[in-house]
C-alpha cells in the first residue's frame, strides 16, 4: 500500500500552518514539515487506508517531541522560564502578542490548543493523534486556553515577562 502523493501533498499546507504556529519560525516550521514528510514516506508501508491527515499529524507530533527531547525541553512544563527572549516574526501587534502568548504555553498545551483551533478536530481525534487520553486533551486545552487568556488579557496572576533566567 502506498500513500497517494496527491493526497499527501494536499495536506502540506495544513501541516505548514500548524507547524508555523507550533514553532513560530518559518524555517524551523518547514524543517518540521520536511522531517514529517520524510518520515511519512519511510513509513508508508505502515499506513492503512484511513485518515491520512490524522496519520500525518501524529507523525509531526512525534517529530516535534523528538526535537524537544534533543533540546532537553520538558514536554509538559510551562516554558516561560526556559525560553529565550522571543521575537515575533510579524509586525502586526495583535498577532505578535498572540504568537508570543502561544509560545509561552507548554508544548503539550500548545499542540492541543492549536490542533483544535486550526484543524477543527474533536477531542477524540486529538487524543488519537497525540497518543494521550481524552481527559488529558481536555485538561491541556483548558489550561492552555486559561493561560492564553491571562497572557493576552493581562491578568495579573502570573507575569508574562518572566523570560530571563
Amino acid at each position, binding site marked *: 500500500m502506498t500513500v497517494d*502523493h*496527491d493526497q499527501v501533498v494536499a495536506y*502540506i*499546507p495544513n501541516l505548514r500552518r500548524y507547524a508555523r504556529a507550533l514553532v513560530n519560525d518559518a524555517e524551523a516550521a518547514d524543517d518540521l514539515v520536511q522531517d514529517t514528510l*520524510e518520515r511519512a514516506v519511510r513509513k508508508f508501508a505502515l499506513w492503512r487506508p484511513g485518515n491520512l*491527515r490524522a496519520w500525518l499529524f501524529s507523525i509531526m507530533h512525534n517529530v516535534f517531541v523528538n526535537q524537544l527531547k534533543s533540546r532537553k525541553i520538558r514536554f509538559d512544563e510551562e516554558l516561560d522560564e526556559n525560553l529565550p527572549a522571543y521575537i515575533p516574526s510579524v509586525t502586526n501587534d495583535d498577532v505578535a502578542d*498572540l504568537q508570543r502568548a502561544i509560545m509561552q504555553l507548554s508544548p503539550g498545551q500548545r499542540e492541543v490548543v492549536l490542533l483544535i*483551533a*486550526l484543524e477543527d478536530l474533536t477531542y477524540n481525534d486529538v487524543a488519537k493523534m497525540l497518543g494521550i487520553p481524552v481527559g488529558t486533551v481536555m485538561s491541556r486545552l483548558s489550561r492552555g486556553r486559561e493561560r492564553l487568556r491571562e497572557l493576552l488579557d493581562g491578568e495579573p496572576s502570573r507575569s508574562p515577562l518572566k523570560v530571563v533566567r
Partner: protein
Amino acid sequence: MNERRDQEITALIKRAYDPIMVEPLPARLMLRPVSWLPYARAAATFAIGIALGLAAYPLLFRVAPNAATAGAAGFPMRAARAHAVYVTEVRHPVEVDASQQEHLVAWLSKRLGTSLRVPILAEEGYSLLGGRLLPGPDGAVAQFMYQDSSGARLTLYVSHRANVESPTAFRFAQEGKVSVFYWIDRDFGYALSGDVDRPALARVANVVYRQLEP
C-alpha cells in the same frame, strides 16, 4: 465569559495562521518526499509535474498533472480549502460584495473568460454575500459566498475547464468538517461547499445545478 473569550482567541489563531494555507509551497517540500519513492518513474513524472506547476502557477494545491486521480481529487479539495479559509472571515469574506452584483459578475466572468451566472438561493434561505477571484490550476477560479439568517455560509466554487473526470455526475467529498458537492457541466466545474450536513447541502446543490442548466 471565559468561553466567549476562548472562542475569540481561537478565531484569532485561525486568522493569524490561515494565510499560510495559501502560500506557495517551498520547493524543498514539494520535491523531497517524492525523491525517496521507490517508484522512480512515478517520482520523476511527479517531480516534473511539480516543477512545471511551480513555474506556471505558484499555487499550493498543485497535483501531478498526469496522475489519474489528480483532477478528481484536487478539485473538491481545493474548493473545500478555499471555503474553509474564507468562510471564517468576518471583515473580508468577499472581495466584491453583493451590493455590486452586476460588477461582481462582469468582473469574474471576464477573468474566467466566460459569462458566469450566479444562482439565487433565497428559497433555500441563503442570500449572496459576494464573491472573490482565486487562483486555480487551470487559471482563475470564482468563489461566490452565500449566508443564511443564522450566519451559516456556503460557497460555490466555479472553475472553467475543470480538470475533473466523470463528467456531469454529482459527487460528494468531505474535507474535515466541510462537505462538498461537485459536478462538471461541459467545461465548467462547480463545487458547493458548506459545514452543513449532506442532505441539506445536496438539496441546495440540486437547486444550483438546476439554475445553472442552460
